[in-house]
């Protein structure tokens, strides 16, 4: 009774603000009339509705005040409130704000009033907001604002209401839908801010109430069902300031306004940065979701506010008058950044999970079915965790992991060897190598870095920049990734896990997989992992028109990823597209369906050439230097001969010995003569195998190796291996049923032959991998080629001579070192050796090198280093030449210093005197003491420039094809390599990637396109 009495001491004025709300209004009105504690006064303020809203209100006998269509919510509330005189009785007057799209539960008002009985400090109390359509979904129970302006409820999206947030909570603010506000405080604070016509007026009011010393609470026993019609774009937003009637723009603008108007002054710069940053990130997200309107809203919202600082200044001045406590009192209600990150992460994971692991409704079984005859109270029998190891897939992965660990026992560290140079210590070096326009390799190179360096840099960045750690983990986990990828494909070909798991296991143990890992072939390993996913995604290769353009762009991105590692992917893609186009043309000849033909043509060409554009300028350079089409990342290493390749073994360093024959060819031949899908798969396999065999006869000189190396055809063999494995799976899956039900005949023998061959190969390959294979070229190593004292001098050129090759076929090779060993990415941009240097080195070896030292000095080569073991005769021969002075002779090798003044930057005076100038890594800033020719001992490139006193020096090409600059006076000079072209290419690359990613990502939906059930 006391409570009832207390309720009676309050006077509640319900103000309904309507705007085209005829859809929701009937229920709103009905809910108001059925309140257990009736409102004392009621008025509706209609803001120019053009539907039947006003008629509905009138028919409900609710007094209506009409106002302009562009009136804001706060203005409407003020108009409604002003229609009631302040009560002269000793009662507390409350304003109950009702939106036309919200319906309070019958007890709502009663509970709201009950919550404030013993809380005189409360200025505003709000109910729990539940969904209009799904009334179990919790929308809000108090609100706040994040530092980036986001509306913060602290709830999961579409969180199910189980009473988990029930109670009376102090909050920053509550939604105006169903909020009960003390009239005196409302008027004292000046009502809602006129600048906030719609959206965020509730947070602003709550914040102002808080700093005025009042309290705001959410009483969740009171419930209101809210349709959120304006926010979800179910009706137009016509308020003043709603530029182009865009609710998002208005919301974002108002959010920024609230933060800037209410925060303490010293927080404003930080908030402005956060607002701008988050607006940009969100706009990028919207662009990717192909919602340019929303993207522009984000940026315009902040821009419209920042260009009018006077509005903020005025608002802050007004708030100052009613501020009795510091703005920081709200700090406890502002969500911490960690909560925001956690929630965003959780949402992202949910989205990924729902996309990757869609709930399978078919697999759900009723508890009643499973324990039909058992007592429901008896707990279901638990499954022993050990039983998981009895699953073939788990057992397969664990076995492979163990075997890989044993086989990789020499690779548990920073990897080097084979095609793999030493990886730089940090991702920063990889990024620099990717972005820089000039590479200090050999005599220098301006070739474009391949995009795989950027991919590797991204991956290394995830591991806190530890590039060597990433590579070690990558090669360790590669067999598992191959198996997982293949298993996903094979599961689509057979339901029998006893076929798919062993097949994927053998795929990870295929000759090409073993050789690729053992010899550090990054591209082939990536291919082996990615390749099984392509047939899963590209299901309609023949009828490609069935794939949407979004899918085509997604495939283009995947292909671009592969192109980034090796342009063999382009050859494969082009070949497949060409064959398919022949089929398309045959179809066109029969059907005369030009539209279909053109659709297919466009899609196929996009698949082939969009990745080329995405990997520019690296891919474009391949059209000038064709050997790049057949190259792999890292060192140029020879592959095997055709006799090995036809058996599926790519050959070369680290590959299986010839006698370890895989059943690949046997399976393909058998599959060719089956009548199942295996035949089609085998046709592709034959194509890949034939191409591999042909290309195995090619030799190229690339990646800093002037000698001819037989092309590595591992990438083609990935296709053949995958096709053979898939064909084997299909054959075994189909033949199993036949074998079980028939007497022994030739099929039994063939199947047995296949299984025995596969089994023998697997055991032998495993045995080899665990023994001899463990000492393959790629191993963890910390040794270096260059002696420490040569690396001390920065960027010093040294000719390094070594005998390389097996003990019975050693050959003398050389290269110019820049004071350090070669690192990842450098072989890919290594220039061809200049013929003058090659001849001079040859002369050193054959004993005719009287003038070799002069040639070396001309090219800035300061040292000659012969790495031992090396022929003693050659060492003695070099000793005998003039111009070389022994600098050291240790167990690692012999070093000679080249006579004369030489270095990277040399000033040659008019009298021929040479002065060495100081230089940095690429650019330099130094002084020339007299006029002369400044010789830069780097390969000639038009981007080399020297500026002296603000003027560009004349550049000419020397006889040795080196850049020479004519300095006409003494002064400060700046040497630089102008990277404008490289930067332009990078910009182009970024733009193209963003565009293609935007085309490939699923389109976002405007809020008005989202179904109401989804909105709750």
């Amino acid at each position, binding site marked *: 009774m006391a409570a009832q009495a207390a309720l009676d001491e309050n006077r509640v004025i319900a103000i309904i603000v309507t705007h085209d709300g005829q859809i929701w209004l009937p229920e709103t009105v009905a809910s108001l009339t059925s309140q257990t504690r009736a409102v004392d006064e009621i008025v509706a303020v209609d803001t120019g509705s053009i539907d039947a809203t006003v008629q509905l209100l009138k028919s409900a006998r609710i007094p209506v005040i009409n106002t302009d269509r562009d009136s804001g919510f706060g203005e409407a509330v003020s108009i409604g409130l002003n229609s009631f005189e302040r009560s002269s009785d000793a009662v507390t007057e409350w304003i109950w704000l009702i939106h036309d799209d919200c319906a309070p539960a019958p007890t709502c008002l009663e509970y709201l009033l009950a919550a404030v009985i013993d809380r005189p400090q409360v200025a505003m109390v709000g109910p729990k907001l539940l969904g209009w359509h799904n009334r179990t979904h919790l929308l809000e129970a108090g609100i706040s604002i994040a530092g980036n302006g986001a509306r913060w409820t602290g709830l999961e999206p579409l969180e199910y209401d189980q009473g988990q947030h029930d109670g009376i909570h102090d909050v920053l603010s509550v939604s105006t839908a169903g909020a009960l506000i003390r009239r005196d405080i409302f008027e004292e604070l000046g009502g809602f801010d006129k600048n906030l016509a719609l959206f965020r007026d509730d947070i602003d009011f709550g914040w102002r109430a808080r700093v005025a010393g009042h309290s705001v609470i959410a009483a969740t026993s009171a419930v209101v069902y809210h349709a959120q019609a304006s926010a979800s774009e179910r009706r137009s937003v016509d308020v003043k300031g709603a530029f182009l009637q865009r609710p998002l723009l208005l919301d974002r603008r108002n959010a920024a306004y609230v933060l800037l108007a209410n925060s303490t002054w010293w927080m404003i710069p930080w908030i402005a940065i956060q607002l701008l940053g988050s607006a940009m990130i969100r706009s990028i997200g919207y662009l990717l979701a192909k919602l340019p309107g929303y993207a522009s809203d984000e940026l315009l919202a902040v821009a419209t506010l920042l260009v009018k600082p006077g509005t903020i200044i005025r608002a802050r001045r007004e708030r100052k008058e009613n501020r009795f406590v510091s703005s920081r009192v709200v700090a406890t209600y502002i969500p911490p950044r960690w909560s925001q990150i956690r929630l965003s992460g959780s949402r992202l994971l949910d989205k990924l999970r729902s996309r990757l692991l869609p709930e399978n409704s078919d697999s759900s079984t009723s508890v009643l079915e499973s324990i039909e005859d058992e007592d429901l109270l008896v707990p279901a029998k638990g499954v022993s965790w050990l039983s998981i190891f009895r699953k073939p897939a788990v057992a397969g992965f664990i076995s492979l992991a163990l075997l890989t660990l044993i086989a990789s026992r020499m690779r548990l560290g920073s990897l080097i060897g084979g095609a793999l140079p030493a990886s730089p210590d940090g991702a920063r070096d990889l990024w620099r190598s990717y972005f820089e326009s000039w590479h200090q390799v050999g005599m220098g190179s301006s070739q474009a870095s391949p995009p795989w360096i950027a991919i590797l840099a991204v991956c290394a960045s995830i591991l806190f920049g530890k590039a060597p750690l990433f590579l070690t983990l990558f090669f360790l986990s590669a067999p598992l990734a191959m198996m997982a990828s293949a298993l996903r494909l094979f599961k689509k070909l057979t339901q029998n896990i006893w076929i798919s798991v062993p097949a994927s296991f053998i795929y990870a143990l295929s000759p090409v997989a073993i050789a690729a890992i053992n010899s550090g072939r990054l591209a082939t390993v990536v291919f082996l992992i990615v390749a099984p996913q392509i047939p899963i995604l590209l299901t309609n290769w023949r009828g490609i028109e069935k794939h949407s353009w979004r899918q085509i762009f997604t495939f283009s991105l995947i292909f671009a990823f592969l192109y980034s590692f090796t342009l063999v992917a382009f050859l494969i893609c082009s070949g497949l597209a060409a064959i398919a186009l022949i089929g398309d043309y045959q179809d066109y000849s029969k059907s005369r369906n030009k539209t279909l033909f053109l659709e297919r043509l466009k899609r196929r060409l996009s698949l082939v050439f969009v990745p080329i554009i995405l990997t520019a300028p690296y891919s474009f350079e391949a059209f000038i230097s064709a050997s790049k089409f057949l190259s792999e990342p890292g060192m140029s290493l020879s592959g095997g001969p055709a006799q090995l390749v036809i058996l599926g073994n790519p050959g070369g360093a680290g590959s299986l010995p010839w006698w370890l024959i895989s059943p690949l060819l046997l399976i393909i031949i058998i599959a060719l003569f089956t009548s199942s899908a295996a035949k089609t798969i085998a046709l592709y396999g*034959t194509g890949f195998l034939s191409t591999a065999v042909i290309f195995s006869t090619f030799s190229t000189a690339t990646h800093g190796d002037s000698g001819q190396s037989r092309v590595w055809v591992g990438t083609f063999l990935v296709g053949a291996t995958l096709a053979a494995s898939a064909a084997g799976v299909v054959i075994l899956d189909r033949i199993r049923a036949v074998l079980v039900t028939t007497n022994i005949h030739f099929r039994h023998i063939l199947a047995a032959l296949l299984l025995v061959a596969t089994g023998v190969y697997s055991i032998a390959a495993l045995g080899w991998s665990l023994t001899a294979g463990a000492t393959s070229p790629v191993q963890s190593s910390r040794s270096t080629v260059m002696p420490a004292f040569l690396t001390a001098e920065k960027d010093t050129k040294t000719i390094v001579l*070594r005998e390389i090759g097996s003990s019975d076929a050693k*050959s003398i090779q050389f290269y110019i070192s820049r004071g350090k060993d070669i690192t990842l990415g450098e072989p890919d941009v290594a220039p061809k050796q200049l013929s003058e240097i090659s001849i001079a080195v040859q002369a050193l070896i054959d004993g005719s090198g009287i*003038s070799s030292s002069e040639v070396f000095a001309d090219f800035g080569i300061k040292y000659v280093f012969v790495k031992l073991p090396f022929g003693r005769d050659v060492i003695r021969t070099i000793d005998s030449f003039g111009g070389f002075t022994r600098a050291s002779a240790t167990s690692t090798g012999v070093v000679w210093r080249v006579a004369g003044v030489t270095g990277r930057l040399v000033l040659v005076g008019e009298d021929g005197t040479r002065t060495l100038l100081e230089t940095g890594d690429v650019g330099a800033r130094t002084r020339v003491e007299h006029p002369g020719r400044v010789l830069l001992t780097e390969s000639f490139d038009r981007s080399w420039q020297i500026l002296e006193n603000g003027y560009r020096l004349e550049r000419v090409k020397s006889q040795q094809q080196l850049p020479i600059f004519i300095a006409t006076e003494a002064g400060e000079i700046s040497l630089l390599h102008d990277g404008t072209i490289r930067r332009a290419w990078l910009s182009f690359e970024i733009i193209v990637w963003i565009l293609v990613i935007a085309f490939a990502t699923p389109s976002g939906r405007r809020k008005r396109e989202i179904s109401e059930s989804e909105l709750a």
Partner: protein
Amino acid sequence: MRRPIIALSALTASFALATLLSATTSNSMYSQSYPAVVCPPTLGGLSSQISISSTKTQFQRLENRSTKTIPFNTLRYAVPKDSLVVSATGVTPVVWQSRSNSWAGGAICSGPITSAWFVGGSSDVTTRGKLIIVNSGLSEASVDVQAYSENGVQPATTLTLKAKSYSALPLDSLATGDKALTVHVLARAGRINAFMVDELGAGLRALGGDFVNPVTAPATTVVIPAIPNQLPKKGQKAFATHTLRILTPFESDAKFTLELLSADGNFIPVGFDSRSILAGKVTELKISPELSASAFAVRIKATEPIVASISSKVAINGRNDFLWSTPTPALTKMSMAITGLSPLIAFAGDSIDVKVAVTLINGKKSFATIKASDIATWRIPNAARSITIISSSRDTYAGALVASSNGYGYLPITAGSVLTRVEIPHSNIKVLNP
């Protein structure tokens, strides 16, 4: 069924094509060249001529700082002083030096050496001989000189030679007072050649002289193919005397057997069957065979590696001279310039079958085939400018004996510089990967 067969045929065809196209890829390329040879300098009081096979053959003076070469423009070049570096391109030049009315001797101009053994010379009071070490390289060279004598191993000397220079060491400084000398020259660094001139005299009386041609390394079997056997003139009874000088330079003593090959037959002279010698000590043994032939050869087989040579006393124009016959390696294809010399070539071997081409001064060529067993001698025509060994039977050795008005000389028939096959290095960034 059509498509599988087409696919299989395509695979087979590609494999066949690949097998046909697939040539073994080798990155090794080679350049072949004859290293330039070095002729000895002309020491004071001597005169020197170099026989060349072509007037266009290029040379440079050792002490010229320039590295430019110039042609000889003659087939026999008188050397004033310097050592010459000759771009002989496969035809070994021969140098003939003499001291007027005293002695004459010949040596072949040769490519840089790593090791040379000179079995000859003396360090006693009669010696006027020199060990000449030439550095034809463009930087400093370092050489070890190790002498042996009848008293054992002498202290080693290390010499440093400036670029493009030579040094003439008096032989008496190597094992002062000792009579029987053997010198090992070991090049440590640099482009080194070594020559030895053995010249003897007693007071003002010249006792003759000769070049001591080197051998590269000790061996268990050595053949000295040409030893002159000056027959006694009328009224003379004594036959010429020869002295075998032999050394086993390593730590173990050796036993050797000397077999004499001559037109009169093969035999082991008395006292030369399983004869012992002490390690590190130079041993001299007299040989005085009674032979009718003008030249003979010896084959020495030892239980340990040895170096050996034979000095033969000869008389010319009433004066005494001597010459050092040294071992030669087995004959291979080679050419040697002999302009102005008309040597007598002695071939030694079990079964001799050698085809020789002789190029005359007028450019014409004549061919000869020498077939014999044990030993054969062949006189080259006077107008010859070069000889070429076109083919040779196995284990056949040859040496040349030259007579001139000043004295007798011996030349080993061996190539001064052999065709050097050098791999052309190629540029590969892999050298910078550990």
